[in-house]
């Protein structure tokens, strides 16, 4: 059987998280009711999601070009995320590490060349 006692720290952690998050939600509610600022209206009660209406028909038209740009962005963003740990550990990985990353960058460059030639970077 698994020895459950070693998971006590995570239980305490979850208890603290639960207590704190309840406090964050209920304390402002209680304070606003007690101080008299509790004054709901339609705008305050609606959900906020980045400025877009939160609920609408999902079958709306969506320009696929946004998707293409987003996916190209994600690839190069992740490449940057890879480069940081690679750069600080280069003294340990040495030449094999350097060559491997150059191969990776070369593959990404080929992918970009393909997307460019296929016209993925042209908006019109």
């Amino acid at each position, binding site marked *: 059987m*698994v020895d459950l006692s070693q998971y006590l720290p995570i239980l305490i952690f979850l208890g603290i998280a639960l207590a704190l998050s309840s406090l964050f939600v209920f304390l402002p509610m209680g304070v606003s009711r007690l101080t008299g600022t509790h004054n709901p209206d339609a705008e305050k009660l609606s959900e906020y999601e980045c400025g877009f209406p939160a609920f609408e028909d999902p079958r709306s038209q969506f320009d696929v070009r946004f998707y293409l740009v987003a996916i190209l962005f994600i690839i190069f963003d992740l490449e940057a995320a890879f480069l940081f740990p690679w750069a600080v550990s280069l003294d340990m990985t040495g030449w094999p590490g350097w060559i491997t990353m150059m191969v990776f960058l070369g*593959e990404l460059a*080929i992918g970009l*060349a*393909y997307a460019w*030639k296929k016209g993925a970077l042209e908006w019109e």
Partner: protein
Amino acid sequence: MEFAQSLRLILPEEILSIGGLVLLLAAAWLGDKASRAISIASVALLVAAAAVTVPTLSGGAMGPDTQAFLGQFRADAFAAYAKLLIYVSGAAALMIAPRFFEQFRAMRAEYPVLLVFAVLGTGIMVSAGDLMTLYIGLEMNSLAAYVLASFLRVDNRSAEAGLKYFVLGALASGILLYGMSLTYGFTGTTSFAGIHAALTGQLSTGALFGVILVLAGLAFKISAVPFHMWTPDVYEGAPTPVTMFFSTAPKVAAIALTMRVALEAFGNQADAWRQVVVFAALASIVVGALGAIGQSNIKRLLAYSSINNVGFILVGLATATQAGASAMLVYLAIYVMMSIGSFVAVLMLRDAESNQIESIASMAGLSRTRPLLGWCLLVMMLSLAGIPPLFGFWGKLVVFRAAVDADMIALATLAIVGSVISAYYYLMVCKTMFFDEPADQVKGASDWAHWALLLIATLFNSPLGYLLTGWFDNLAGKASAALFLAA
């Protein structure tokens, strides 16, 4: 020095990845009109990769000399055997594709490139010596496969097949990763050799969950019951050359991977996973046999037939012996040739407007209207059913013999009963082709490449195949010895 040695060991993968990237650029600059030339170049890449893989198998390479990148990658005889089967299936899927897609005006230069990358991924899967390598190979193959499944993008069924494959493939990856993280958490290592050493004696509950979840994730990929539900829909909807590829290369790779994980990484815990494998084997045989009976579409029928065949292959795994592993490898080779033959034959069924015919009823009387095609399909169906003079019988025989030698007589008996049930629907197809009034719908002429592949597959599955049994036993023996050296 270690790094240079590793680079020499992954030569087949280097050929495929560099060649694939060059062809990708060629596809972008030359456009779709060059797709036939790119297909031919892709077949050449596969032949080159196979040529450098052959010495590894015939030399029976095994042991520490075959480990690249500190044991993360294994270039041993077992991997070489699986890779050669994969390269054959990949080349077949490339050769039959141009003619098929041209009738829909949908042949694109990306098809051969994606196929080369899918083959590269399956090659990495069978060479995995570490959970990380396993996952990279699996995803590399899967991502290319999702696109291939929906390659006829104006066809609704093809788009549906791609989406279904993607959603269920993502679910399978999630389950597999969950199992891998549990395994890592309870053993402290991701390497197969390390897990093998760590999992000795009594298995803790958490490690047991890890083992079971990893096997469940892999069962998705080999479409073993109860994780088979995506197979008929994907096989029916995907373009036929892609279906042929799905039923061969990724399946060979996933089965080889399951063997390596179960027999090597989890090799000390065979008693823990054996009951799971026995259940999956018997359930696959029964569902594959019963599910196919009601089918009217030949591609769906072949999908159930492939579920059925996976069940027989898993019977070999349940023995957890070297003889069982060797029998599985022999069965796999025969299964690949049966799949290639039957799907190429299905591809050649076209009506006067050269639309694909997929309903079994339209194949009525095929033996009188198209005798050669009818007889080739007959050989395939009877070989799949395992009727003695044909080569499919040999695959079943070696697997059952391994099960009996491992004292699993009840399992072998139940599998044989399942085999008899499945013979019913193969015989139904034969009866429709040979004894029903001709529907006279199959008209279209076929490419020479289709005929060549079909005739090779038919000869292989005919009684002439028995000339190869000694050769296959020798190669499968070398491959399974390499697998069991580490275990």
